[in-house]
Structures are given as structure tokens and as C-alpha cells.
């Protein structure tokens, strides 16, 4: 019996050694170790042996079973390895060839920039509001403390709509020169506290060149509550500037004049190109003027039906196009409205 088992082992090991595929190996496993396999038969036949022989033969058969199993596993590893080594050759592809094409659309860079800016303000609890592009002079100027025939109106070159000569001046229609026309409109059905941003298209009757467009986008924002301070304005804009330009951006606030704010400020950031050393973009000043702003003038608050004795507020507004151009280093503002896909595909 013992000899039979040893012979079986020898035969099995040699056949395993010769096997050259996983399939053959599997067949050998079934042949020897399967439910009806040779070795299995021997182990089942142990009960027919004399009691004295059983432990010895049993132990031997189990040992050989383990040995065969181990050999099969090792052999299958070898076969696998050999095979994988071959597919590197047989299934080789040129991985430098380009990937297959997917639809590849692009958002307009102004859309992207508005989203970026608006999201920063949303994170500070602002609400988005939209106001009409064609509006009465009343909302664009009069309520903003820019009376008719005031020299301050000269600052805005305005497009007017032709067919309303019969209307009084404040009902004259124009293409809004800024998104500030939203200020009083938004407050017609709101009460403080409010935090509002207004993105939108504006128009100025300016001669077009590489840095001036008659069509442009603005982002207006304003906050009204009890106890709103100048320092809140500065903090809000500093937060915004850091989010857009990074934490190492420097900012400064310069006094200026706007009829609808008092005090009025121009908010500058350090030139993002020369880091403040002075270059052609910042006209050697080291600063980029990015945002007119200020505390909302009491006359404007009154037009919003907000009592300036109880409430205060700040407002700011900036040109999206210019900021976007700075951000991406675009040197010609007209590209934005050119519809040229060679421009758009870069964003």
C-alpha cells in the first residue's frame, strides 16, 4: 500500500511538472485530488485496512495530498507568470496614441468668472438678484443721487432708447450704465438686513478699443443692516480679493467720489503681474484699481425706504470683464464678444 502511494505521488508530481496550461493542471487536480480522484480513493479506503496500519498510511496519504496541492499551486503561478509575460508582447498597444474623443464644451470665461465671484459672496450669505438692462433714468441715476444735469452724470456715457421723447426725463429709457439700478429696485420688496449681489450686462457709449467695450459685465453688491461699518466694507472686499487673487495679495483703499456713496472709496489690489513693483499693466503704480465702493449715501437709503438714522450699508461694484482679463492675462477685451472659438476653447 505504501509503495502504491509513493508511486502515485511520483507519477502525479511528474505529470504536474509537465503540465503546460492551467486547464491541464486543473484536470490533474481533479484526477488526483478530486472527489473521485486517486488519492481521495485511497483515503476513503483507509477503513478497509487493518487498524494497526491505518494511522501510518493515513498520515502518509495526507502528507502526499498536501505536497501535490502545493505543487499544483506553485505550478499554476508559474504558468500564469509565463502567460502574463507573453501578453506584454502579444497584446501591446501604442499608449502614446491619443485617447478617444469626448464632447468638449467650454463655458465663456465671463460666465466662469461671474460664478467664481458670486460664489465667494454666496459663501458670505449674499443673495443673487437681477435687474433689467433697459431701465428708466430714474433707477439708473435719479434715485442714486445723480440728479439730472449734474456734472456727475458726465462720468457715464449713456445709450438712450430712441422712441420715448414724449416722456419726462426720469422716465427716459436707457441702457443701464451699471448694475446699481438694482439697488432701489431690490429694496422695493425687501427690508434690511439684506446682502445682495447683482451680476449683469451693462452698456456705455464709449469708443471701443482693446481695453474699452461698450458692452460689459458688472457685479454690484450691497449690504444694509444696523451698524454696518466702513471696516465691514473693507473686510468684505479684502476677503473677496484674497479668494480671487490669493492670500498674499495686498490691498489699499483710496478716497474717491461717487454720488451714491458717502464716503466713497476706490479699492485697489497689488498688481498681480509685477507683485507691486510696477509694470505696464499697472502703469508703473504697482496697483490695480478694481473696485469702486463706499457707504450707501443717506439719500439713496431714503429712496429705498430705509431710515439712515437706524440703518447703514455699503455698496460696491466692479467690472467683471476687466478683472477677468487681468486674471487670465487677456490683452484684448473685444475677444470676449467675438464669438471666436479659438478664443473660447482656451477656457
Amino acid at each position: 500500500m505504501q509503495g502504491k502511494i509513493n508511486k502515485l505521488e511520483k507519477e502525479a508530481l511528474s505529470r504536474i511538472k509537465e503540465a503546460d496550461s492551467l486547464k491541464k493542471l486543473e484536470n490533474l487536480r481533479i484526477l488526483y485530488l478530486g472527489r473521485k480522484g486517486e488519492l481521495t480513493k485511497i483515503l476513503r479506503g483507509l477503513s478497509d485496512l487493518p487498524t494497526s496500519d491505518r494511522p501510518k498510511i493515513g498520515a502518509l496519504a495526507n502528507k502526499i495530498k498536501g505536497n501535490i496541492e502545493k505543487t499544483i499551486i506553485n505550478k499554476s503561478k508559474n504558468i500564469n507568470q509565463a502567460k502574463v509575460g507573453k501578453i506584454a508582447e502579444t497584446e501591446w498597444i501604442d499608449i502614446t496614441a491619443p485617447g478617444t474623443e469626448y464632447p468638449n464644451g467650454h463655458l465663456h470665461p465671463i460666465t466662469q468668472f461671474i460664478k467664481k465671484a458670486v460664489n465667494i459672496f454666496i459663501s458670505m450669505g449674499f443673495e443673487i438678484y437681477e435687474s433689467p438692462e433697459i431701465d428708466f433714468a430714474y433707477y439708473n441715476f435719479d434715485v442714486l443721487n445723480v440728479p439730472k444735469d449734474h456734472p456727475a452724470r458726465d462720468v457715464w456715457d449713456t445709450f438712450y432708447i430712441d422712441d420715448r421723447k414724449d416722456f419726462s426725463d426720469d422716465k427716459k429709457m436707457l441702457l443701464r450704465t451699471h448694475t446699481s439700478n438694482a439697488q432701489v429696485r431690490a429694496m422695493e420688496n425687501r427690508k434690511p438686513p439684506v446682502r445682495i449681489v447683482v451680476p449683469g450686462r451693462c452698456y456705455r457709449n464709449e469708443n471701443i478699443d482693446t481695453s474699452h467695450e461698450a458692452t460689459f459685465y458688472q457685479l454690484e453688491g450691497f449690504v444694509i443692516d444696523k451698524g454696518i461699518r466702513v471696516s465691514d466694507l473693507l473686510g468684505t472686499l479684502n476677503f473677496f480679493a484674497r479668494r480671487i487673487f490669493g492670500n498674499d495679495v495686498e490691498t489699499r483703499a483710496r478716497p474717491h467720489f461717487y454720488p451714491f456713496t458717502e464716503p466713497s472709496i476706490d479699492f485697489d489690489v497689488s498688481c498681480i503681474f509685477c507683485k507691486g513693483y510696477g509694470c505696464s499693466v499697472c502703469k508703473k503704480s504697482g496697483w490695480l484699481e478694481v473696485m469702486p465702493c463706499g457707504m450707501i449715501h443717506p439719500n439713496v437709503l431714503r429712496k429705498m425706504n430705509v431710515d439712515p438714522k437706524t440703518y447703514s450699508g455699503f455698496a460696491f461694484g466692479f467690472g467683471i470683464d476687466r478683472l477677468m482679463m487681468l486674471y487670465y492675462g487677456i490683452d484684448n477685451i473685444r475677444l470676449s464678444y467675438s464669438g471666436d472659438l479659438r478664443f473660447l476653447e482656451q477656457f
Partner: protein
Amino acid sequence: MKIPINWLKEYINIKDSPESLADKLTMSGTEIEAIDFGTSSFSGVLVGEILEIKKHPNADKLQIAIVNAGKEKLQIVCGAPNIKIGQKVPVALIGTKLGEFEIKKINIREVNSSGMMCSEAELGISDDHTGIMILDTRAKVGEELGKVLDSGEVVLDAEITPNRGDCLSIIGIAREVAAVNNKKLKIQKTKVKEINKKTSDFVEVKVEDKDLCPHYIARVVEGLKVGPSPKWMQDRLFACGIRPINNIVDATNYVMFEWGQPLHAFDFSKLSKNKLNKAEIIVRKAKKGEKLATLDGIERKLNDKDLVIADPSGSIAVAGVMGGANTEVDNDTKTIVLESATFDPTSVRKTAQKFNLRSEASNRFEKNIPMPLNEIAIDRAAELLTEVAGGKILEGRVDVLSKWIWIQHIGLKVSRLEEFLGKKIPVNEVIKILRSLGFKAEKFDIVKEAKKHLGKPYKYGANFKEDGVDAFDCSYLTDYLYSQINQFVGYTSLAQYELGKPIKDNNLQSGDILFIKGHINKSVTDHYFIPKDNDGYKKIILDKPKEVGHNGIYVGEGKVVHARHYQYDNKTKKWVKVAKEGEVVEESIDVYLKNPEYLGARRYVENINDWIAVTVPWWRLDVKIEEDLIEEIARIYGYNNFPSTLPSGKLPESFENKEIKWTDLIKDILVGAGFFELYNYSFVSKEILEKFNIDSKNCLKIANPLSSEQGYMKTSLVPSLLVNVLKNESNFESFKIFELAKIYQKQKELPKEIKFLAGALVNPNDLGIKYKNGKEFYSVKGVIELLFEKLGIVKSDIDYKEASIDYLHPGRSAEILIKNKKIGEIGEIHPEVVQDFGLKNRVAVFNINFSDLLNYISDVKAFSPISKYPTVVRDLAIVVDEKITTESILVAIQKSDKLIKGVKLFDVYTKKELKNKKSLAFRVIFGLDTKTLSEDEINSAYEKIVKILEKKGAKIRK
């Protein structure tokens, strides 16, 4: 405004470098845009003298000049009309670079030209390109231009904001420098040496329109000798950007730059005289049809809105805009009438705009001239005329003042300052800043103020205009005290009693006002006035008359100060006149508290010790309210010394802007599908409108368009998309574009602004079914289907209806309906339109009313459980008549049996051999949520489909 620093130094010590001065001014609100160091080099540009001028043989508008440039004589061809023999001109030699432009030897219409005579614009000196720059005849031929022109004067170029008319002057800027450096101004007193002849004997001024000319001053200066002004004056005027003319005009201009007051000089001999042989100056509105030739030689047609200066024979100047040629100062002028006035800013602005005559003078009048300046400036001009033109000044000014010179008081609440700024600035610092700007400012002490007036006489009905601070009645005293912090308390005792907050007698603080009935006889008892927000008064009528006849102000320590005329006689219980005429006295509070007619106490300001009383200097017409003062303090203190904080306080109501949310989502979907978003102008040309059969009458027209290309507001996004396609089809073979923008529909009031979502595509290369015909159409349809699915619009609510739309292909277009309402259209562009636009490719578009679409979008998503049982897929191909719609077959399959879980078209095949038929292949999914289907069940459902389709005439392909 140009600011020569040396001139500035006459009024203020400056140790700063020009750069540091510029920085300080910029950071305090006077933005310095450029520093001109006066050393611009014009290398290669020499002074030349024109020796000879000939006509160009081959060009009418060109001349040939022979110019002596020192070392050589040059032949130069020139197009400028203003050259004359003998003039000195700047000549750029060959090889010289002017900006990017290099002068080369050239041949202009067969004549050689060696060099260029330059205009000021070409040299970068000014914007003037009307002709060649003519130099002083004393300039040396052959000298470098820089040596002739460069002054070495450092000049700051400042942007003055429209509110700061006072800074349109060197002294105004000096005041700013004084404030930022906290230094004192040194302005020398004007010395006017008058001769023994009275101005009023020579000139009379009649102001007919007092609203448009609140203040007019005239002086007469005689014995003048007209000639060039001294070099120092010429240099400064030149540095300020204007050309010297003669000593008289230069002196008036000098004062304009120095003080900001535009002046005008009339030749006395040219003014018509009245019977008394006096020149008569009349300030009035022009008569309809009146004409005046102005100094520039142009005849101006005036109308009754223009303000003019006239003499009895007619107008002699357009007020504040330009003088008349008829009274112009010339070389023979000996005596002049000088004018220094304030005109209504709006009137000047309108007239100047109408004539397109915006000048240094009109610009200043438009910003409003403070009336006290009229006097200062005219005296200064007279002084200068003595100095530079030998003038003798007649005695006195003829001065017509028609309006109250307002002195603005403002109360600044210290606690509010900190609340408003977010930064505590010490009171001393605040006062120091205000004073450095010329404001009067001190901590308000109402007790001290009240006691200042003790002993002053009582006058019933006293007021500021007539009495100043020389006499008071009871309510004027209290009104005046509170006016120092610009707090309106009421003009009469009754008003003050009504407007104050009642205060208990045991709770009095200084500044509270106590009332007694007093001597009533003339006092009004039933009404009072309060000022309105914008000018004028509002009358407040009481329900019941109240007798409030007297009051006094509590000054602490049991004392009251009041302007008193009557005294209460305790015995007779009557009011009797005090022995004297009456005066401001301090008495025990018992005079009120223990009087049987005592009415109570009132308070107007919560914390009377919280105030700084500020008086605005006359030149700061822009400072009117507390916020204006706060700005003054903040800008000099420096915003960069402020902390950064974020708004705190209550959470605002939060609104999610759905429209923005959907906009973002839609754009993302389209971009995901390979579309480029682009932006077009809102404007459209008439030509494009016509190509699209849109009547321009229905479009909003721009009154002042930049060009005819941009004359109208869009009513559709599609035309500009086609222009986009045209532009891009030469660079890209296949592309998809979209725009989400507004269109503008004319209506009665404001136009309707409707957002549209429109897109176009060329040569789509999509996944899925390969349509042989109309792939463009199916591509836009596909993206709309994708979009609607993502927007939660239920498929069964959507219909595509064949439609005829002008600009679309009649066989390849459809209206899109949601719940039977038209929401837009898709289709291929009509071949004729394609041709009109000159497009190479077939183009398909979608055009959807985004505002309407919003009504159907939903982000509600309901989960339905995933079936536990497997589904089975079978494909089915049929050949069917071409005109049978795919939709009807899909519906038929879907409805054939409840086992059909879904059906999808996956192939379409049309070929000649099929004749008028098409082959369609469908993938049908069978399944039930309750069990696994057996082979038999699937087979029988499949057979059902086959039968139904065969009934429709379809042949099943095996």
C-alpha cells in the same frame, strides 16, 4: 488738473519728493495720474525756420516747404494748412523716432521729403493735431526742441472728482497738502491800491435773473498797457496747459488757476454807455433769436435758456462760457471792466454743452463757484493787472448779491463716528483733522455757547439773517444754539415744545429747554413750520391751539439762560415788561419750575456731550451732511489704518435664486454635451434684421448708437449665432455653440426682457444612431431631449410638432411644446437663409424661451425601487413605409403589452433599394417587477409586437 509743484510751494512748505507728494495726494482722494518732470526729450527734433513754401505739383492739399534746420536746409512735404514763411517750427530729422514711428526719407507723389514738421500731438505734447506747432519767433534755429520747451518744471496731473470744484485751483490743492502734512497755508493778503475814482461812476450792474446769477462783482481797471505777460506768468500758464495770450487775459487766467474763479475782462471803450456815461452791465436770459459772435469768431444762436451778459445795445458774453468778440480786449485796450461772478452751474453746463464749448472756465462754473470767492478773485486779478500791465484800480467794487451766503454747520456725533467707521479715532485727532482742512471744529458745549450771549439785547422776531448773533428772542436763542450742531429744534416756542421729547423735571440735563405759557399776544398758537427734505417748509397744524409763549435753556446747576422781555409778577399773576428793553439773562430755574404757567421740559439730543460742532469753510460747497464730514476725517486719517471686519448682525432672509441655479445647470449640461458658450452683443444692425424678415419698427432703436451695426436691440438670438457660425466655419469643421441671453421686446412702458437659450451646430459627430438625412436636426433634437430629461421635464409632456417657421427648413423643423404650450423651436436653417448669410454648411439651431422653460423645470426626484427580477432584451428590425413616423411605432411597441419595460430605436437605414421605405431597428426590454419571465411569456409578448407592426404595414426583418 495740472499742478506745477513750484507754484504750489508758494502757499505751502513742501519737503516731499514729487513721488511722495503724489502718493499722499492720491491716498487722500486727489488721484495723481502722472508726474511730468518737465524733461521730456525730443532728441532729433530741432527748431527750424520756414524759408519758402511752394505748391505741390501733384497734390492739391500738400505744400512743399524749404526749412532751415541750422546745419542744413531741408525740403519737406507737408499737409498742414497753418504754415507760413518765417515761422519757427519743430522739425524731426530723418532717423528720429516719434513713439513707434520713425522718420524716413520718402517720396510723396514724386517729390522728395526729408524730415517732418510736427504738430503738438505728434510730439506727444498735447492732443492738438490741427496743425504744425508754431514756436516762439525768438527760438534759435537748429537748437534742440527740448532746450526751447523743457521747463524743468515738475507738474502733477491730478484727476479732480466732480464734487471738488474747490480743487480746480492751486490754492485748493495747497489746502489738501496742508491737511495731509498738517502744515499751515501761507497765502499773502491781496493788496489793492485804489485810485481816487469811483468804480460806481463808471459801471452799473443790473442782474435781471437772480436765480441764474446770485452774485456779480465788477471792477474797473484803467491805464493798462497791453503786451506779453512776464515770463514767470507765461511759464506757469504753460505748465497748466494753456497758451499765454497777453498780460490782461493771462492775469485773469492766472487767477483762475490760482483760486479757481474764472474771470472775464470787457474792453470798457467798447461797452455802450447810458445817459450818465456809465457802462451798463445787464445779466439776463438771452432773447429768442438773439445772436452773438463769440471770441472764437463763431456766431452763436442763443435762446431764452441761455444766460448772457449784455449792455443796453445787446449781449456781450455768454455767461460763464465765452466772451463776445464785440467787447474783446485788444492791443489798444486801456480800460477794462473785470467780471467776477457766480452763475447757476446747470445753466452754464447746458449752454456750454449746447455750443460744444466746454472750457476751463465753464468746467469751473459747472462745479459751482462759492460766492465769497468772487470778491477774493477780483481783487487778486486787479492786483496782478497793476503788476503786469500797469493798471490803475478804481475805488470800490460794484457788487450785486442776490442770494444768502449760507454758512453750513454740521453736528458730528462722536459715538456715531466710531460706529460708522469701525475704528475709534480720538476726539482730539478728529478736531485736528477737521481744522487742518479749514473747518472750524470744537467739542460742543451748549452751556458755554449759551453763556456767550448773556447781556445781548432782546428783539422780538430776531433771526440769523437780520441779527446774526447781536440780538435774540427766546426761541431764536435756543434755535441758534442747536443750529451749531445742525439740529433742527423748531423756529418758535410752540414748535420747540411740540418737537422735543418730554423730560421729567427731576431728570433735567444741560441743553434741555423749559417752557412756560408766557406773554402770548403775538405768538402763533395753532401751527408751526418744519423744513422739508428738499427745500421749502412744511406747515404743521395742531388739532387744538396751544399757548406756548416763552422758553429758556437749562445750563445746569439750577440755572436757566433765556432771552427775556417779560417777567411774571407773582402778585398780579400777569406778565409785565422788564424795566430794560430785555436781554439774554441767566436766572434760577425756579423762574420756570415754580411758575404756575410752567408747561414742562423738552429734550432734543440724547447725549449733549457727544457732539463736535463743525462749521464748513466757504470753499467746501460739497460738505453738507454728517457723512460728508466722516469722509473728510476718514480720508485724511487714511483708510489703510482701518481694521478689516465682516458684517455681523442678524442673518438676512435667504433666497435661493432658482433662475441662476437653473441657468448654471443648463449651461453645464450643454457644455457637457460639447457646446461652446459664447456672448454676442445685444445690438443688431438693420441689415441683419432684414435678412431675418424682422421689421425694425418692432425693435427698440438706440438714439445714439456707436455705429449703424449696433443700431437696434435684438429680438432674437438666432441671427447673431449664424454670424458666429460664419466666422468659425473656416477654422473648425464641426462645432456646437450656444448663448443664453436676453432679447428685448418693445411694449408700452419698459420693454420686455426675455431670456432665450439658443444654439447652433455644424457637422455633428454624435454617438448613437447615425442618421443619413437630417443629422443636424437630430443632433439639436438630441441635446434638447437630454436637457429636458436632466431638468426633470416628463417626457410625456413634451411634443414636437411640424411647423413652418420663416427662417427654418420647411421639412426639417419643429415647434417644441411642453404641456401643449409652445416653448421654442428646433430645425435646420432654411437653405435660402444659409445662402443669404453665405454659410458653407447646413446649420441646425434650437431657440427656446428660457423664461417660459423655467416654469416646467423641476428638481423633485422620486425614487422607485430597482426590480429584483432580471429583464430580457430582444432586438427587432422592420421595414416600413417612410412616412410612418418613428414615434408612432415606438408608442405602438410600448403599448403592446404590459411586459414591455422599454423600447429604444438604435438604427435607421434608408437606401435606394428600399425605395420609399425605411429600415428601423429597435431594442425592446421585457420584464416584470414581480417575477422572472419565462421564455414562453417573452415569446408571446414579442409575437404581439410583430402582429401590431404588421398591421401598420411593417415587414419584420429576420
